[in-house]
């Protein structure tokens, strides 16, 4: 399969996208669509609507790839930023407000948005409960704000009532804990 082509670095992938190679777009989708979809879904809580936004995100990346450079961070970060913006825009549209009044509190609500039970596959739910139960409540919220809701350091510091200088180290600790819980830390520990 064309999408199985490996790109040696993100630099190569970005260049392939800039050359408008569809295999690169497919590769990007295979690597990041799940995470991006997860972030959209946590905001909109509707599979159908989230799929629409997911499509928009990748097409926007495709069309605007020429404006991307290293000052915007990693491709993943850029994708997430676009996904958050499009999702929040959707959330603010009148039609959405009318049909989904509960989601309105997303922007201000810090609490984790539990997925609706009918949409979630039980195996994943089990995996999720593993992290969530083991992850400290404060760390969970911190990851949620920084990686899924796109809060700035200042906003995080205000929301969690912690000094802005400690956001960085707290985030580091939360990610390390997450890596430990998901087993990602294993290799790193061996290397060290």
């Amino acid at each position, binding site marked *: 399969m064309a999408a199985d082509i490996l790109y040696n670095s993100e*630099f190569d992938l970005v260049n392939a996208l800039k050359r*408008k190679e*569809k295999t690169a*777009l*497919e590769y990007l*989708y295979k690597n*990041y*669509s*799940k*995470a*991006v*979809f*997860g*972030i959209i*879904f*946590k905001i909109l809580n509707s599979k159908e609507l989230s*799929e629409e936004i*997911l*499509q928009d995100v*990748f*097409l*926007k990346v*495709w*069309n*605007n790839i*020429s*404006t991307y450079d*290293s*000052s*915007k*961070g*990693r491709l*993943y*970060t*850029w994708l*997430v*930023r676009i996904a958050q913006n499009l999702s929040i825009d959707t959330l603010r549209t009148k039609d959405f407000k009318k049909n989904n009044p509960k989601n309105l509190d997303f922007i201000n609500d810090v609490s984790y948005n539990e*997925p609706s039970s009918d*949409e*979630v596959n039980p195996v*994943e*739910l089990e*995996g*999720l409960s593993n*992290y969530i139960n083991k992850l400290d409540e404060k760390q969970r919220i911190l*990851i949620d704000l*920084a*990686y899924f809701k*796109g809060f*700035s*350091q200042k906003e995080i510091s205000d929301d969690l009532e912690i000094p802005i200088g400690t956001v*960085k*180290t*707290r*985030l*580091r*600790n939360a*990610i390390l804990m*997450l*890596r430990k819980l998901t087993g990602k830390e294993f290799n790193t520990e061996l290397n060290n």
Partner: protein
Amino acid sequence: MFNVKEYIDSGILELYVAGLLTEEENKKVDELASQYPEINFEIEKIISSVSEFASAGVPDPSPSVLNNILKNADTDTSKNNENIVLNVSTNSVNSGKGFYKYGFAFCLVLFIVSGLINLFLWNDLNSVKDEVEKLNAEKTFMAQDNELLKKTLNKKNLDLDVMMNPSTVMVDLKGVEKSPNSNVKVFYNKNDKLVYLEVKDLPAPPKGKQYQLWALDNGKPIDAGMLNYPENITGLQKMKPIENAQAFAITLEPEGGSVNPTLEQMVVIGNL
């Protein structure tokens, strides 16, 4: 010496992946990541664990999403991508502005065209006005002409009546020796005693002099009136009524006429 471990432990890479650094800081991290593989490896670790956490407990998107994306992805590299960005972000606003811009240009063109048409029509109107003025003048002239012709025709009809009247006698006054070409016709209606005169050929009278018509009744001259010369040179001229006459003659007299004719100054004479 740059301490990679310390740099990684600082937590800056977590902020980097979360997109919480400035553009300048992003560039710096990217530079270091390409320089130190450990940093790049750490970044990828963070991304993969955050990705996994993001998708945990969330259903997978339908496979049709990828198909739609690939179907809708335009591969035309000739298109300027920055233009696409502009189109995406300012689509609705721009189309409005474009409408007004083109609308304004269109109005301006209409205005200029209408101005030119007005100028053209104005010129046209002026020439038409001139034409109307000319035609009006012509009409007045023709009306005057017509009036004159009517008068002339009336006069001719009257003259004709006089001449065709069975009681009218025409007297041919012929030039005497010193003016052999002179000729005047007198129409004399014996019943009505009316005398008319038509100058056929008569030299213009010198200044201070006037022609006078005389009727001769049994050799005695009777004043028959002064000739209007040259105004009534054509058509009949009504003279004084005469009771009886056997001959008519015209003499050149001082202006206003004389009681008795100056015989030496006789120009024409004719018998009934």
